[in-house]
């Protein structure tokens, strides 16, 4: 019998070594596997290479991983945000290497790794500083850059629901990088709100088939859902509104992404 569910977060991140390349899902806060990242911090691995669209914001999740000095290199499209102070400091102090990748090339390179593509030609970034050092090729009168796959040892992803085969569904724009990162890592770990019985996910609507998933861990409901239904009452970080109404900072939103 196949059962990819693990009992707790510690088990979910077990075996992640110093120096590992770790993909971290999410776009800003949406889809960021904060609980798995916290467990990774507790587990102690360092010298990590992180592949993620952003480099974290505030003091939680990816930002905390960087603050704790566990990250050697970040591969991402948009590290800078209004609240990316931990990344900013580490980068300015030279404690962190940055590989900046246009967001679409980042996504496609991750997909290429998962789909066994050796390399591909992308029209993005031609003529820009990010094209430097890359092979240029003209195809049908247009110039393209050769882009290589991005693989990882581990992918940490946040989904909505999963079953014991590791089939996963996501919620709204929290889907973002999860489905492609799941295909590109040797070990894919998914945190979900809820683990449901096999057969209860609609086979037509499964976004990540279990073949890409190694471990699934339940972390409890999102605060803005009740019995799976949206009830709101939170800010963009998922914090209850009531608790933060007296905090002026709570009304500021994360910085842009372009």
């Amino acid at each position, binding site marked *: 019998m196949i059962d990819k569910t693990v009992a707790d977060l510690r088990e979910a991140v077990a075996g992640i070594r110093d120096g590992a390349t770790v993909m971290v899902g999410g776009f800003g806060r949406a889809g960021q596997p904060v609980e798995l990242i916290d467990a990774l911090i507790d587990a102690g691995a360092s010298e990590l290479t992180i592949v993620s669209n952003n480099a974290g914001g505030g003091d939680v999740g990816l930002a905390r991983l960087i603050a704790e000095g566990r990250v050697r290199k970040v591969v991402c499209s*948009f*590290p800078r945000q209004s609240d990316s102070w931990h990344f900013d400091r580490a980068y300015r102090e030279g404690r962190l290497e940055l590989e*900046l990748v246009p967001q679409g*090339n980042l*996504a496609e390179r991750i997909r290429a790794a998962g789909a066994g593509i050796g390399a591909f030609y992308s029209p993005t970034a031609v003529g820009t500083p990010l094209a430097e050092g890359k092979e240029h090729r003209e195809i049908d009168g247009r110039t393209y850059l050769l882009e290589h796959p991005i693989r990882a040892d581990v992918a940490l992803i946040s989904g909505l629901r999963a079953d014991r085969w590791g089939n996963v569904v996501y919620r*709204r*724009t929290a889907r973002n990088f999860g489905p*492609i990162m799941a295909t590109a890592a040797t070990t894919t770990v998914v945190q979900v709100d809820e683990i449901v019985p096999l057969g209860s996910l609609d086979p037509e609507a499964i976004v990540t088939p279990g073949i890409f998933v190694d471990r699934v861990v339940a972390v409890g409901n999102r605060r803005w859902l009740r019995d799976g239904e949206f009830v709101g009452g939170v800010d963009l970080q998922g914090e209850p509104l009531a608790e933060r109404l007296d905090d002026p900072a709570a009304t500021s939103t994360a910085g*842009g*992404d372009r």
Partner: protein
Amino acid sequence: MTDRLDRDALARRVAADIPDGAYVNLGIGAPTLVADHLPPGSEVILHTENGMLGMGPAPAPGHVDPDLINAGKLAVTELPGAAYFHHADSFGMMRGGHLDLCILGAFQVSQTGDLANWSTGAPDAIPAVGGAMDLAIGAKDVYVMTDLMTKGGESKLVAACTYPLTGVGCVTRVYTDRAVFDVTPEGFAVRELFGTTTLDELRELTGLALTVVVEAATPEES
């Protein structure tokens, strides 16, 4: 009448040029204002590159859904007919030329349509590009929406960009607070003047030999 359009008026002007049924990506910042001025009754389908078509306006207070944000990481809503997809599919949509229009901000636009909007090249700046380069080369048309002049008084329309490029020859039109410009094989052509602005003024401000659009079959739908 002032000599410049304010941001809302400019957003309204851009919105009026978006045809019914168009698939549009609005960059972060000022371009997102365009969504508030789309002609009532027209259906313009908004794409956000973090994985959604059919994006609706900001939610009512208390109805923020952290799982439902736009590329600027602001809360949005879902219209009937919306669809979600992952990042590779979302950027495939863009790179594959399926978006009709993308509206971006800019630091500089050159007379050959080069766009610089992601980096000022300052040595101490933390670089961040996001989806700007993918958007620049992806949409069928790239419109820029910006003030004509920087706060320092320099023209954002230039003969050649001095800032690091986002994309080469990608911009087709520029909406500024003083005028609308098309990018043509002969350089910038003025399409429309706002307020008291004159062509001579624009030539002086930009230092460019501007032409004037003839036969402007503006696709105004509203």
